């Protein structure tokens, strides 16, 4: 079995406070739902915050596979302008 390949996770806005960083490199858990479960176990406050997800700059709805080098971003509600 190949060892899990890393994915990059980006935390924006207040989620960077929740995670204590704006960027993590994690061994890929294979798919997005597994990644989210791992993140929410590690940072429980994530469950209290609504956020959207992009994988490689595309918005995802539901689960999706994660490949080596993928960039996953967690986007809380926008506050531009």
């Amino acid at each position, binding site marked *: 079995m190949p060892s899990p390949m890393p994915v990059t996770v*980006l935390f*924006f*806005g*207040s989620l960077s*406070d929740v995670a204590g960083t704006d960027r993590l490199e994690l061994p890929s858990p294979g798919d997005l739902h597994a990644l989210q479960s791992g993140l929410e176990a590690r940072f429980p406050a994530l469950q209290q915050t*609504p956020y*959207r997800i*992009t994988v490689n*700059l595309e918005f995802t709805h539901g689960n999706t596979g994660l490949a080596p080098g993928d960039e996953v*971003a967690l*986007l*809380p*509600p*926008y*506050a*531009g*302008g």
Partner: protein
Amino acid sequence: MNLESHLVNGPLLPLWICEQTAAWEEALARDGAAARSGACASFQGIIRADAVGEDTVEAIEYSAYAPLAERLFNEMERSVANRHNLHAVRIWHSVGLVRAGQCSMLVVVRAGHRAEAFDGLRAAVEAVKAGAPVWKRELLSGGGTRWVEGTFAQQIF
């Protein structure tokens, strides 16, 4: 002068706005759009020194998911231009620190007539407010900071 990028480090200063707008208008003049435009309207979002309890807002620190923001700003510009019959629309937004009284957002539109320019300007600004992956944290006079609560609006552009 970078006409390609929508995100700008720090405040949009008056001289920068003049130069940027002039460069943009020169580019439009070269492609002939200028001859058809009878109306040019612009909007600047400015940091208010709002009261927050005993404090006031001294500055806002903006962050953005830059590559996504660039793509979405391009999509907003195309969509608003098509929907409102604009000859051109251009969005700029600050990242990083912007102090009270300074400008953090600039939208400029050109259209044949004023009604299109007014409607298109408003639509473009609302699109940025609702759809730009940008976040902000207020820096308060007492030394504290506060994330500004955002919204997940329906995509309106």
